[in-house]
């Protein structure tokens, strides 16, 4: 963080501690993506992650007096997020109907391990950059699946394709995007199977 950014954050936190809602809104705006990303990689529902991210900021506002303005705010928010996530998991322990419970546990642990020292926000930024390089039918497919929330079956009906073919097409896009992220974020490991040299610019046909 630059010195100017740091000074701005310090001023905003102090103002928020004086119950300046505008200052707090500026902090939410700045940190929202990072908090949401931190929760989203650990939860299988984007909507629950979004709801919980809101809760993080409401809790943060209630506890703002305990935030040290001289220290970075992101780790403090992350701590609140992890506590709320732990609560959420206790309260809404899902009945396993989709992914194998044991497999889900292993993967949750894996994802948590990969982001143990944060980095979700950086990965999100890199993903945004990589996505901007995807266009054409691939981008339309990603939009329909991830922005509009269409199921594979719905998409298969609309596109007159087999669900399994669409599932693989989306998988390949995720792999390419993962490789692209790996090339942009230091310490990021490429998604297997990847090309030997990760492509920084996914092509529309990928």
């Amino acid at each position, binding site marked *: 963080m630059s010195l100017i950014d740091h000074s701005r954050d310090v001023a905003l936190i102090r103002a928020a501690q004086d*119950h300046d*809602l505008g200052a*707090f*809104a*500026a902090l*939410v*705006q700045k*940190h929202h*993506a990072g908090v*949401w*990303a931190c929760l*989203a*990689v650990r*939860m299988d529902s*984007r*909507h629950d*992650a979004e709801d919980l991210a*809101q809760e993080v*900021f*409401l*809790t943060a*506002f*209630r506890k703002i007096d305990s935030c040290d303005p001289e220290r970075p705010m992101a780790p403090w928010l992350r701590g609140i997020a992890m*506590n*709320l996530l*732990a609560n959420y998991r*206790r309260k809404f322990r899902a*009945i396993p*109907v989709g*992914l*194998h419970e044991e*497999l889900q546990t292993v*993967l949750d642990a*894996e*994802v948590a*391990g*990969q*982001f143990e020292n944060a980095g*979700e926000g950086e*990965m*999100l930024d890199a993903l*945004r950059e990589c*996505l901007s390089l995807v266009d054409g039918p691939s981008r339309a497919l990603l939009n329909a699946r*991830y*922005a509009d*929330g269409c*199921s*594979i*079956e*719905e998409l298969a009906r609309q596109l007159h394709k087999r669900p399994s073919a669409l599932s*693989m097409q989306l*998988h390949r896009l*995720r792999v390419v*995007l*993962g490789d692209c*992220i790996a090339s942009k974020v230091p310490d990021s490991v*490429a*998604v*297997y*199977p990847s090309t030997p040299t990760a492509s920084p610019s996914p092509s529309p046909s990928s």
Partner: protein
Amino acid sequence: MNPRSMQWQILAAGAVEGNLSKEEMEQLMSICAESAEARHALGRLLAVDRLLPLAMESAEGSLAAREAVMRIEQDEQVSMEMAWKTAERARRWLWQRRLKRVGTAAAALAVIGLGAWWLAMWQVAPASVMRSEGMVWVGTPPSFTEPDLARGQRLQGANGLLELGFRNGARVVLEGPFDVELRDETEIYLRQGRISVRCPSSAYGFKVVTEQAEVVDLGTEFCVSLEEEGKMEVHVLEGAVEAKGFGHAKTTLLAGEAVRLSKAGVKRMEVDASAFVTDMPSRKDEPIRFIHWSFDEPQGAVVEDRGRGFIGGDSDTRLLMKQFGKKAEEPKRTAGVFGGGLSFAGDGGYAETEFPGIAGNQGRSIALWVRVPKDVGVYEGHGIVSWGTVSGPRAWQLSANTTTEGLKGRLRIGTYDGGCVIGTTDLRDGQWHHVAVVMYAGSRPNLSTNVLLYVDGKKETVSRRTLTEIQTNVLEAGHGVWMGRNIVYTDEAARKGAPKMFFRGDVDEVFIVDAALSQDQIVRMMRNNEPPG
């Protein structure tokens, strides 16, 4: 297996999309157990999958900021706290300047004004009595003309159980003998007794303070006991707490941990959850009432209510088959999940009972099995079960959403006039799904906070919801509960030429309950067709 192989890719794709068969999951599990490389690759793919929806949204965060600010402004509790703190700061500022340099009259007015404000804030009740069982009070029982409790109120019980609800959402169960004082909405002072505390996220930081220590919630359920001779124990059942014995260092305790605090120090011990009452027994004087239409009669135009509590009441709770229009056919019996079910053709057949539905802001649940065809039409998803009035948000209608607002085919509860909560599971697959909508009662319940959706026993992720107060009006509806007919398709709407709006699909085991059911109860209903206890 090589994680670069085609087979691995197929399994990984299916895992991320959540459509693997049991055998495929076992296979993938086995690969992941053996190969860290495979595990890592799959974890990364999952992270990409989970971040993609975010990456497609605006990076500005301005909407989130606006929503956060709106919620803070709406949060009366936070506003009150802020008002109090602002008043307190102003009071200190004036005091520091000894009022000398400020015009005496203005200062006096300010102090009086702030004093009144301060007093008003002080008088906001931090907690209220939720329930009590067998209470024997010490001395004269406290006066509970209203359930609200004042700051600083002391409660002493010789025996019995008392449940308190704090304004921040914390729930406390006190077990007699006890002696406590309510400091404010975030703190209770324990002189003696056994106390269990459950804190939602809104009550993060709730404190139990004693003469020798303080226990601070970090998002959890915990219990504290303090005997007369000063022996204090802290047991954490869920989450974490911070325990600090005065004169000793802070100790963080996680779920399953316990400590004994004394002047000599802090000593770890075995947690004993069974030693505390953590939940009050259910009210025996107010059993749950419910209607249950099982459709197990082989045929006939009348479906009996097999429920409890409403039969023999003010309204006839039997369900009658009806038809709207000469060409329409009454709903027909079909094979259900448990015995028979009821099939609606979407052409004007529906069912009605004299029972008007659950009114006002009373807690309620609807649970049923539903089968929605894959090709359900735009007017054929709504009105699976409904009641209330279509004038303002005064209705209560369960549907498979077919409107353009929100995702189609998802479970929806609507109040009319734009009020709705919509889930995420697409019901349009021609398969039976168990769906439930639970509304928790409140003085001013709201769709955004008081309603939970369940699909196949699992809490449903909400894709859309509105900030609409729930106030169901059954008095002016002009009809009872409908099944299979969209509540907006009134006789008047039909006369004005509105297109027919009748549900097409099948239902079975319909329950209408006058209380908010827990997930456990819903799962038992789903699995065993077991009525709510």
